[in-house]
């Protein structure tokens, strides 16, 4: 009964004429409201899989940072190779769970030599560096880990919930965004798919 037209009804002596319309309006509004509530979806809205991003088809945002080894990192300089960026946080369960798959993927791509995709881990802001180092030394993974101490990269890629994985083509254009856990087969397949599309054009 949120409808503010209701107060008109009781204070209107000529209810004979006005009341039916007021009642009708109230009933219609309430019925519509009811339908909206009844049809609204509930439950988690987080999606795992290929998701949309305003970046798709555009040159990737500028990423200038350093890796944990202290080496400067500039995404624009990676042009010419396929780049896979995995957004990661050492405290996130799914990130830890997918890690062995990334190790597998990295080994696979290294097998292709220079044409293999380069894998980078992008940290979240405030991620404890010691914890990250410890996790990688315990669980393997020799690819560069890039810091994002001011959060710019995470914001620029619109990453809120890690893990997320982006594929960037040799022109530096973002071609795919994957939200949630991924396995090595799927990732290789997606990279290959993009490669085919890229080479066809």
């Amino acid at each position, binding site marked *: *009964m949120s409808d*503010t037209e209701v*107060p008109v009804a*009781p204070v209107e002596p000529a209810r004979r004429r006005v009341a039916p319309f007021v009642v009708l309006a109230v009933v219609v509004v*309430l019925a519509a409201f009811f*339908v909206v*509530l009844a049809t*609204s979806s*509930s439950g988690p*809205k987080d999606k795992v899989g290929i998701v949309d991003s305003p970046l798709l088809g555009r040159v990737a945002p500028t990423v200038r940072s350093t890796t944990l080894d202290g080496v400067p990192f500039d995404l624009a300089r990676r042009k010419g190779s396929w780049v896979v960026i995995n957004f990661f946080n050492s405290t996130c369960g799914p990130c830890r769970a997918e890690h062995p798959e990334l190790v597998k993927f990295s080994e696979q791509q290294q097998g292709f030599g220079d044409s293999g995709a380069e894998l980078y881990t992008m940290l979240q802001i405030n991620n404890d560096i010691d914890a990250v180092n410890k996790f990688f030394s315990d669980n393997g993974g020799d690819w560069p880990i890039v810091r994002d101490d001011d959060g710019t990269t995470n914001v620029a890629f619109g990453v809120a919930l890690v893990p997320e994985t982006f594929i960037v083509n040799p022109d530096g254009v973002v071609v795919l965004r994957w939200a949630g856990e991924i396995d090595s087969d799927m990732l290789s397949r997606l990279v290959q798919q993009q490669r085919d599309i890229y080479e066809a054009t």
Partner: protein
Amino acid sequence: MLAEGVNGLFGHSALIIGLAASVFGAGALATATLLKDQRLVRAVQGYVWVALIGAVLAVVVMERALITRDWSIAYVQKVGSPDTPPLFNFTALWSALEGSILLWLLLLAMYTSIVARRYKARMADPLVAWALVTMLVVTAFFFFLALGPTDAFQAGGVPDFAKCCKGPNPLLQNHILVLFHPPILYLGYVGFTVPFAFAIGALVTGRVGEGWLVETRRWALFAWGFLTVGIVLGSWWSYEVLGWGGVWAWDPVENASFLPWLTGTAYIHSVMVQERRGMLRVWNLSLLVATFSLTILGTFLTRSGVVNSVHAFSDSTIGPYLLGAFGVIVAVSLGLIAWRGDRLRSPGAIDSPISREGAFLANNVLFTLFAFVVLLGTVFPLIVEAKDNRQIAVGSPFFDTMAAPIGIVLLFLMAVAPVLPWRKASTELLRTRLFWPAWCGAGALVLAVLLGATGLQPLLAFTFAGFAGGSAMRQLVLATRRQGYRGLLGRTNGGMVVHLGVILIAVGLTASNSYTRAGEFTMNKGDTVQFAGHSFQLNDVVDFTAPNRVGIKALVAIDGGQAYAPAISKYTAQGMDVGTPSVKTGLRYDIYLTLENGSKPSTGLAKVKIFIKPLIVWIWVGGLLCGFGTLLAAFPGKHRRRPTDPVSAPVPLEETVDV
């Protein structure tokens, strides 16, 4: 009984007995009233008691299961843990949906039996009987929920301690207010069932005159008082636990408790118009229906997962049932109102907008508008999603923008309405009566500006708050001068105490929203920083461990005095980080410290955020005054107007205090 343990068995049995008792009770009473069978009517008392026993037993058994850590029950696995501290293990009952429904059920059964007992002698009166039938039907619905969709006693299987039994959400186990806030809020929520039931009784019997109001007025008042105190306690909890220094975030769960408060507040004002003038009958019935159905709707919105909230500690499949209940309540009530429409025609007329009833009317328009805005904002994302399949958000900036002007106008009404006579006011009278209250408002403004307050909206709010405070004080001073301490009793005077409480809350909210200052400092052990005229020295950063959590805390001495210890804890079972602020409370402002991520005991480094939050304490005091004023209002005043005094007589110009 092989499938379920003794607690599950007892719990289910209690619920089944309660369900049966309330269904039979409702059926018997309805039949008896239709057939005018007095013997059967008397038998209903027994059913009500059995239903109450069922509800009490269910809660007791669940508490027993929680305390004895009976892992055979799924709910205990969900909210219990081997090492939850006793207090929070006790409150774990209402830390998830299933147990909350049990608490709701218990309070509802209590209200039902109080109604049954209080009106025992008058159960032959069809109006009372139908009211009790309504209460029993609602009780039966909640017994049904507790047995089916939200079965708290479901068998849990063998607990896998690696995954289960982690205890309540960490946010629900780090402050004592968890013990008070939910039950008191629920007392208010559930309490509005009683006036609703009487409204239904009035509609069914067609006795829609003013008789039923007398019954419901005090019930509505009590429910309103509990709801108010419950909401304020909830804000306090949020302030003390959530760690961002705010008391109100327009979160869907907060809105869900605020909506019935708004319509309930509108009701306890407009009901006076009906009592005095016999008007607004449909309107008052609608407000009661709205209030009750909004409690159900709010529960649906926040518990079904259709809107996301920081307070929604569980999702479930209860949604369709609650939505169905909401639909049935609204449809039945509207149908009844339409059916009785001919009898609802009110005879009176309001002579002038500048009168007490005119002010109440304006009050109702504003409160209803406020409720409409809050409801619209809360469900608007759902509407957009249904229409365009887009996800949008409507958040605090929207509600703040809308609430500020409405609140300021309401404060103005609060200032003017208490001095208005019924029927009609002359300019002369307004000029005289409002003179000193208006100067109170001017004084508040001057004081605020001298203390450095700026901005049009906050200054208007302070002015009208002072004005409204002056009006309320004027009424109280006149009444106590005449009657001594008894001048504080009665609806009008108690109401003025409540007004003072609401004014304090409004001032506290305005000041803390407008003038909070915050600074973030990275300090090494031993460092001192200056902020807002205070010095903060970081004495130490230390690790600490408790049975269910580990964490770090910083010891920060304010002005070289006592050390305050904001902390971050990791609840080991849930793996969840929870910040715990530390607050130095003051009459003028609170100093609110939080520890931010990135602090490390090993390096002696701490990131501390300091908030200076003005007048926060006024909100808690205001809440207390609201509760106290409600109590005062529930006592009858000394000079009750004789009901046979003509109300249509001209109002004398001199003070008419006890209206």
